[in-house]
């Protein structure tokens, strides 16, 4: 599969602060790719470099097989800080952004109307943007990002600040884009969201790459956890060989296992020592993987 985006040893610093430190990644075309990391990890800086808003200090970036800046019209970008021109009407604003991406006026207007229709906002077309509800405003922003039918869509924290209904809308949009063969990159600090929707991820912390790959690969290579439910007093779970961390909730517990742990032996020890009512062995969540790599929670 052709790569939509290739990052090679990309570095960027602001004064003494290193924002992005030798990041490399390959994002295959037609995939949904997550940039994960806590706030301030360097996600937005990386995205800005891909969008040619910032220049990398060193390293190479290739977007859709071209240097960034050459393919601006084929990219759609929704920044984390989202705004609208308050005095413009919704349809006008969307068409304006279409024209800025090189669409001609008539085409931009028809397409704006179609998309508003598709998002159930046909009644808002002639409303001024400052009169739109928050959810409607967010939809208008997303439509503005997609009006020119971009091949690569980059969404910076698209879920932040959305209510559950709008989270669903955005999720549906992302999946729809993938169905149409587009590549979607989005950044988030909420690992659960990424886990549910991404094909592959890049995990960044303090400007450095922690790991990248498909969700499947990452989980297979990661350490497993045992979730168990129990009655009565548990044995000292921390003492069991191969268990590196315990999250005991009183009636249930989660044990993180070392990579070389003997899962069978651990299960036997548990069953022998306490009243286990249920247990599952599973690959860790992305959240768990992040915590293990970084030693702190991403939020």
């Amino acid at each position, binding site marked *: 599969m052709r790569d939509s985006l290739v990052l090679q040893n990309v570095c960027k610093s602001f004064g003494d602060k290193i924002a992005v430190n030798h990041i490399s990644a390959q994002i295959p075309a037609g995939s949904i790719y997550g940039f994960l990391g806590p706030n301030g990890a360097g996600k937005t800086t990386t995205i*800005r470099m891909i969008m040619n*808003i910032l220049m990398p200090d060193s390293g190479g970036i290739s977007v859709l097989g071209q240097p960034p800046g050459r393919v601006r019209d084929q990219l759609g970008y929704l*920044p984390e*800080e*989202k705004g609208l021109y*308050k005095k413009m009407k919704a349809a006008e604003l969307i068409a304006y952004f279409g024209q*800025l991406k090189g669409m001609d006026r008539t085409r931009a207007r028809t397409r704006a109307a179609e998309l508003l229709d598709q998002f159930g906002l046909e009644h808002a077309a002639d409303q001024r943007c400052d009169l739109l509800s928050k959810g409607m405003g967010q939809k208008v922003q997303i439509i503005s990002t997609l009006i020119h039918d971009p091949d690569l869509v980059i969404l910076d924290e698209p879920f932040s600040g959305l209510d559950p209904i709008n989270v669903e809308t955005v999720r549906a949009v992302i999946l729809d884009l993938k169905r149409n063969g587009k590549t979607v990159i989005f950044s988030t600090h909420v690992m659960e969201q990424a886990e549910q929707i991404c094909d592959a991820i890049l995990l960044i912390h303090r400007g450095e790459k922690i790991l990248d790959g498909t969700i499947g690969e990452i989980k297979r290579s990661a350490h497993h956890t045992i979730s168990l439910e129990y009655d009565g007093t548990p044995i000292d779970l921390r003492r069991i060989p191969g268990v590196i961390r315990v999250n005991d909730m009183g009636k249930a517990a989660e044990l993180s296992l070392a990579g070389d742990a003997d899962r069978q032996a651990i299960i036997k020890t548990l069953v022998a020592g306490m009243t286990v009512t249920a247990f599952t062995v599973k690959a860790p969540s992305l959240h768990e993987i992040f915590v293990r790599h970084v030693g702190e929670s991403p939020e």
Partner: protein
Amino acid sequence: MKRALLVASREFIENVRTKGFWLGIMMLPIMLIMIAVIPIIVESTREPKTFTVIDESGWLLDASLERIALNGPQDRFSYVPADGRDPEALNEAIIRGELFAYFMLGRDPVNDDEGFRYISNNLTNRELSAWFGRHVSAEVRLRRLARENLTEEVANWVTRPIEFEGVQISTDGDEEEVSAQDVVRQWTPVAFVYLLWISILINTQMLLTNTIEEKSNKLIEVLLSSISPVQLMAGKILGIAATGLAIISTWALMALLFFVGLPEFFNIDLPVNLGDILTEPVYIGSFLVYFVLGYLFYAALLVGLGSICNNLKEAQNLMLPVQLVQMIPIFVMVPVGQDPNGVLAKILSFIPPLTPFVMMNRAAGPPSFTEYAITTALLIASIALALWFAAKIFRIGILMSGKPPKLREVLRWLVPARVKLS
């Protein structure tokens, strides 16, 4: 370029289609008209000033009143007889506000000046004493002339001052008389400097506000993902320039209507033909050229400045030096207008931030072609430099948040990145 124009047309349309914008434009001409009309209205509705006279001579008051009646009395002043009241009673009347003032005429005006007094609580407004005094003097003068056996004609002839006739030399060496038209023409550039100054100030201020707003409405990143910072900056500068031209055209149209259309319609003959002066190519041409150049220069400064500020307050602090420079043309407007080709005018013309205003001010001179060529070349070079700086600052500043950077930091953006040696 196409996308810069797209940005420009959006700016323009957004500005022009609000009602507030047109109200704002109308404010200036309406204010100017009010300043001209209100004093006339106030004057016409004012109560007449009441005065009386204590006449010691016995004849001067009657003679003066007769003269006033002959020469057309004034509505502004109303005479009431003193009715034998003494000064004390009249003073009280002044304190009570019944009287504005009273005059005392001396016992023997033909032979001495003693005993003439003007009593009022308002000595700053001397209209009344000047007007009544003129008539009293005329009567006294007549009698003094008669005593010396002189007629009024002889006296007038003896005392008539010599008047110099104003003549200027036209370019082909002919002498021509100075008419009111010429005087107005000489001072018209000053009006144009005012207009130029206000137009540039308003427009660049608009650009500054607009840039800061753009930063705060969080659309910058989306815009920069579609167009380059230079395109965005150019679009903004162009859009606001178009808005400015709309404002000026509206004013020009209103001025033409007021000074040319109205007199024509009511068939009033003005002593000078303002329409002719206002539409003189050297004025209109200078104005348009210097508006565009002056605007571009200050636009470059302010768009750069606006891009590093997060709100108007921050911008205002940084604006101060620019505003001080912008004040200079107003301070030197009169001296430059009086001597359009003097040393001061010439020196100031070569300072690019002042060139548009000072050269406009000198348009009645007019300056030599060489001066036009050199100052304009200097100005255009400065504009290019300012725009280049602005683009560099805009590119970085527009994405910044937090405290505005120090001057040293900004200067560092202007020089190419240095290799760190460590």
